[in-house]
């Protein structure tokens, strides 16, 4: 009995030493780019805006909050327009946008702009759809409501369900300007409120077409080959796929305090690796 107990405690001790060494190691690994968050006391960082940014924001926030539990980071969507306005009005510390803020916005809110990734915007359909490639003209006709049936494009005989984003969306602004060349979007189009919601909608609707950030594309949705060029990280990076934009984080005036540290982290080698992992193209 006694012996058993001693055995048990030795085992427990061994386990404890092992876990502490393990924890120390992971701690050291993670600490590389995160060192600047050491010693930050009880602070909240509020982020809102672009929905394409959210996967990167969430992962960065998770790492930072694990490294220093005293830091609290909240992330909200809303779209680029919302992000710019909220940061301009001082409601959040960082307002993300998937388009460059306009001159009036920059002047009105005294924005300072930080670009930390490049991203493409691709038209997407359901993987069950036979149509996998379109021309710009066809894309314009689909979104303006001139082509209404998939059979005219070599698909099944079903009505095309067009999905678009609300006015606040930077993804919409870029897609409308560069892919649709500013042609109309039909008022019959369904409207969804984020890149995530768009992906869910297209994933569930075999007859839908919409557009998302290239970082959101995986095997649940098909990225439409446009004018013979498949949108992926390589073609966006090389500039062959033209419908691309920067991902920006904006602050009111020069970024300072925790907001500055957060943006510095995104631009650090660690942060840029994270950007790449999430399917976006690093700027450095």
């Amino acid at each position: 009995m006694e012996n058993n107990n001693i055995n048990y405690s030795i085992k427990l001790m061994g386990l404890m030493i092992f876990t502490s060494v393990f924890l120390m190691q992971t701690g050291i690994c993670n600490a590389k780019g995160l060192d600047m968050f050491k010693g930050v006391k009880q602070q909240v960082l509020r982020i809102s805006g672009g929905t394409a940014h959210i996967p990167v924001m969430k992962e960065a926030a998770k790492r930072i909050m694990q490294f220093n539990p005293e830091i609290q980071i909240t992330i909200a969507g809303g779209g680029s327009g919302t992000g710019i306005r909220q940061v301009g009005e001082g409601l959040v510390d960082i307002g993300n946008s998937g388009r460059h803020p306009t001159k009036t916005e920059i002047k009105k809110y005294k924005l300072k702009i930080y670009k930390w990734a490049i991203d493409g915007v691709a038209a997407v359909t359901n993987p069950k759809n036979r149509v996998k490639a379109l021309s710009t003209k066809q894309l314009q006709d689909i979104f303006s409501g001139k082509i209404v049936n998939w059979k005219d494009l070599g698909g099944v005989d079903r009505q095309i369900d067009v999905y678009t984003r609300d006015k606040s969306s930077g993804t919409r602004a870029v897609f409308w300007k560069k892919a649709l060349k500013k042609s109309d979007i039909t008022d019959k189009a369904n409207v969804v409120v984020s890149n995530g919601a768009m992906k869910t909608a297209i994933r569930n609707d075999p007859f839908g077409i919409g557009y998302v950030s290239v970082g959101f594309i995986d095997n649940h949705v098909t990225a439409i080959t446009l004018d013979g060029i498949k949108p992926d990280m390589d073609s966006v990076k090389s500039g062959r796929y033209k419908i691309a934009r920067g991902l920006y984080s904006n602050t009111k005036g020069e970024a300072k305090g925790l907001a500055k540290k957060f943006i510095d982290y995104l631009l650090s080698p660690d942060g840029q690796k994270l950007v790449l992992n999430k399917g976006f193209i690093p700027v450095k």
Partner: protein
Amino acid sequence: MNFKEKIAKFIFFSSSILSAGVIFFILGFMIILAFPVFSKGLFFDMLTGLWSPDHGLFGILPMIAGTVCIAGLAVFISIPISLGCSCFIFLVNPGRTGKFFKKIVEAMTAVPTVIYGFTGIFLLVPLVRNLFQHGSGMCILSSAIMLALLISPTMILFFIQSFSLVPKNYLNAVDALGGNMSQKFLYVIIPNAWRGMITGIILSSGRALGDTLISLMISGNSTAFPGSVMDSARTLTAHIALVIAADFDSIEFKTIFLSGICLYVMTCTGVILARITMKKQNFQRNNEI
């Protein structure tokens, strides 16, 4: 009245003035912010026009139509369901089973709308799309069905309450005369309880009109004027949620306040109607007793 009582009276009076005042304050606030629309003579264009900001059209008529269609259809679906359910709980099986179902219905009132929204997207929308072989499934019908589910608990509880206000001796009289259950329901309960039922219907239509999340998630939010129940449509509430991110100085943003005023007027009319019918019912009852 001593000093303490006076102070208490003052505090209660001012807090009730404050809470009542907020309602008028909000209406005033919306009218003031929508004032540029009134002064530029855009009011009727906006109220009766179509929505296409790229072409300079800022009409919210499609949204008004969307709201009325979705809420109306939801109430239309919900009435028979609620009637059947409340009849079961009150009349057919008032014992343990009925109490159990009533508890479930009461629990349903606490389910957050976002849950209904999610369930709708993943279960109802594909079902509607496959069943009717038309469109995306994000349509007036889907969101009306989901809204019907949302408002039926309110309606059921209101129905049961107004049934239980029917004097017991009436019901006993039916039993004594050898009347069966459907006779009791059709000829005694409904004629005596209909005002309370209407109040329930009006209040739950108010809930259907004012709900944002379900319509935002399921109805598709297209700005075209709805032509059939299979069409995607946008409600006023969803419109507000979608346009609020637009530039503050734009005309688009001003339509938010107009939409707000429309909703305000719609729900207020409903509540006032409910009040009037309720008052009449009480009056009638007092006279009888």
